[in-house]
């Protein structure tokens, strides 16, 4: 009967899966590269940029800049109306694309964005994604991991390319397999009431640059950005925040999940109590499953944190600037109850044609000082020379 456990059964088919948590081998890298260059169905999306989408998205990355939310304010800005937050544009479509290596977990570990123009309210964005590379890594937390890089391109309704995005998904075996999974110790931070109250006061006091232009001339290399504080992450935030700029042509509940499972039987998790099929994604907000896949606790979605990183820079640069590039790398999970502090500084300043550019480097660190995300961004600032 022991082998029966490893069969994922549907009414007309049964899949013999070696284990619910397979490991990675020397051959895995070839499998991870198999679909390179293929325009994947799962990567296709068409999304209308509506007020509802922007509002819900800004709730997800804790953005309060009225440029994205308040029509009267936005009308007076350089853009003449509400525009979409840059990370929203860059995240149109499916956040995780992990081809091959069935049953090996995929974690979103970063996004690199290049934006070419702003997106206005009412625009319709179309995205397509193709895997472009796979790289094998060896680390302390897991002996072997495979990073899959996918290029996502986003066009508007006029067929103009508005954003290129390279996103990185790390494939790491689930810990329950016992071979090569993540080796995190479980943790959950405990705060005092005074600390809790301080986060509330601190985050409420934060200001965005808004309509005061940040001139290139006034910006100096080495200049520090005003810090931000985000969190604590609640369990319900990991599950019930909306604003995902994806179209669910490929998603949905009940019958839609059944159809997906039939296509991807190895990604099916069988609940030991009910015997019903489910998805290990539940580890984001259920302790038991988080431990099964090897995470130290319930954890945030990678795209949420990437989005917070881009939002930090966009809030700093002001409404007259244009965020041109942002590369985000996630290094460690952000768990439920974790608070993260963002810091950054200007690292470079130069002129290219008519554009006055600065480069900033930012990071997020949690209460233990662990840097769990880093980013580098390039911003076109307004210049007094162009006034």
């Amino acid at each position, binding site marked *: 009967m022991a082998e029966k456990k490893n069969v994922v*059964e*549907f*009414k007309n088919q049964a899949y013999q899966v070696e284990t619910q948590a397979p490991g990675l081998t020397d051959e895995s890298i070839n499998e991870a590269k198999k679909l390179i260059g293929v325009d994947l169905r799962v990567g296709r999306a*068409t*999304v*209308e940029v*509506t*007020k*509802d*989408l922007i509002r*819900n998205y800004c*709730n*997800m990355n*804790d953005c*309060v800049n009225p440029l994205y939310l308040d029509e009267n304010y936005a009308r007076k800005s350089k853009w003449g109306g509400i525009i979409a937050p840059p990370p929203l544009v860059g995240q149109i479509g499916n956040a995780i694309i992990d081809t091959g290596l069935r049953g090996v977990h995929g974690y979103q570990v970063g996004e690199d964005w290049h934006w070419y123009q702003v997106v206005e309210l009412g625009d319709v964005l179309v995205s397509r994604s193709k895997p472009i590379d796979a790289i094998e890594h060896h680390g302390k937390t897991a002996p072997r991991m495979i990073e899959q890089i996918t290029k996502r391109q986003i066009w508007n309704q006029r067929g103009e390319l508005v954003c290129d995005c390279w996103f990185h998904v790390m494939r790491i075996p689930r810990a329950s397999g016992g071979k090569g999974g993540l080796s995190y110790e479980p943790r*959950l*931070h*405990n*705060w*005092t009431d005074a600390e*809790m109250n301080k986060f*509330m006061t601190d*985050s*409420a006091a934060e200001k965005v640059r808004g309509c005061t232009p940040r001139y290139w001339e006034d910006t100096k290399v080495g200049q520090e950005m005003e810090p931000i504080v985000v969190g*604590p992450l*609640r*369990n*319900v*935030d990991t*599950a*019930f*925040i*909306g*604003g*995902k700029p994806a*179209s*669910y*042509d490929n*998603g*949905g*509940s*009940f*019958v*839609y*999940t*059944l159809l997906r499972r039939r296509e991807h039987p190895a990604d099916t998790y069988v*609940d030991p*109590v*009910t*015997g*019903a*099929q*489910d*998805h290990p*994604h*539940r580890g984001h*907000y*259920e302790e038991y499953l988080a431990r099964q896949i090897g995470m130290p606790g319930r954890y945030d979605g990678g795209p949420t944190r990437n989005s917070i990183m881009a939002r930090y820079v966009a809030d700093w640069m002001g409404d007259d600037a244009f965020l041109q590039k942002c590369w985000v790398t996630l290094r460690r999970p952000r768990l*439920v*109850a974790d608070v993260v502090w963002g810091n950054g500084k200007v690292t470079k300043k130069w002129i290219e044609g008519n554009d006055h550019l600065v480069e900033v480097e930012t990071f997020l660190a949690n209460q233990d000082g662990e840097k769990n995300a880093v980013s580098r961004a390039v911003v076109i600032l307004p210049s007094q020379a162009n006034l």
Partner: protein
Amino acid sequence: MVMNLTVDYPELTGSAIAEARKLIGVPLRRYPGFTEATRGSIMNWARSIGDRNPLYMDDYHGRLSRYGGLIAPPLWLYAIDDTIVSPKLPGIHCIYGAVDWEFFKIVRMGDTFTTEVCVADVIEKQSEFCGRMVMQVGEVKYYNQKKELVAKASPKILRTPRKAAQGKNKYGEIQKHHYTREELTALEDSVDEEKWQGAIIRYWEDAQEGELLTPIVRGPLSSEDVKLFIQNTNPVKSYRRFMQYLERHPLCAFKDPASNIWEGWENQLLDDKVAKSMGFPFAHDCGLQRVAILSNLVTNWMGDDGFLVKFGVELNLPWIYGDTMYCKGKVTRKYEENGRHLVDLQIWGENQSGVALTANGYATVELISKSARDDERKLV
């Protein structure tokens, strides 16, 4: 094991009830999840209840329908206002107990909405679940951009003191169901065989009193299903937006004893321990989704040309994760009223063991009559 949460669960007091009564008839501030019917908001919502009708997702199908384009399922209006009308009584739990809907207009793609919301009544009750409790009857009116009244909902929100419910432990004996291979196969069969009337007109003449509707099956329920529904109906406020709300409503959250962070009560939908502390057997569904799924039974049956006129249901047991809901219904009456050809349905949902998850479900559907001339088949 019951969780010891660091916010005291307040008792239900007479003065708190009197405070709640003061708001009867007063227009309430709302936090809509969505305000516009767009292709995305309709399709994503429909898919989150497992609806497969192309009328809500496929432009081409919508174009050929009598509406000339995509429309929204009637209960999609939950995304405009979730009808949880429960002001005051801080710290007293909210259960979505029942709802009565009346529909007047179709929701088309591109429509935008405003609502008028108030409490219509506050009634004290006794229950097996928690002893003394309060029922808040709400009134939610939905208007489109032309200021037309599109629908009216009358939700009944039960306010149950958590400590009392924990003490009564009404569902103490409930166990999770373990499915056999045969049961799972039968479930898959029902999903594969689900039928919707679609573009083929269901004529009023063809409906028979006593006729059974083809059941629809949803489950086994997973937190992933509930998550998707909430994301597409009314996502939770997070970070600073949550903290602002918390300042005005200090009992809208509890402090998780393990981390001491403010955690939302929505956590009862994810965490068995939290659900148990409020008198529930396990983490479970959100009632709105159950109502919405039951309406899917009716929209599947009536077809693209039918119009849902009235719809209502009571929710009587939590739909716990792992359980499956079978939605069933039958035609109880067929009649003409003011020139409309109507059919009354009785509808209900039960779990895999035949235990009723809903009570007193009903729907009134307007169907097209073979006798109607084309110009009488007017659009709503």
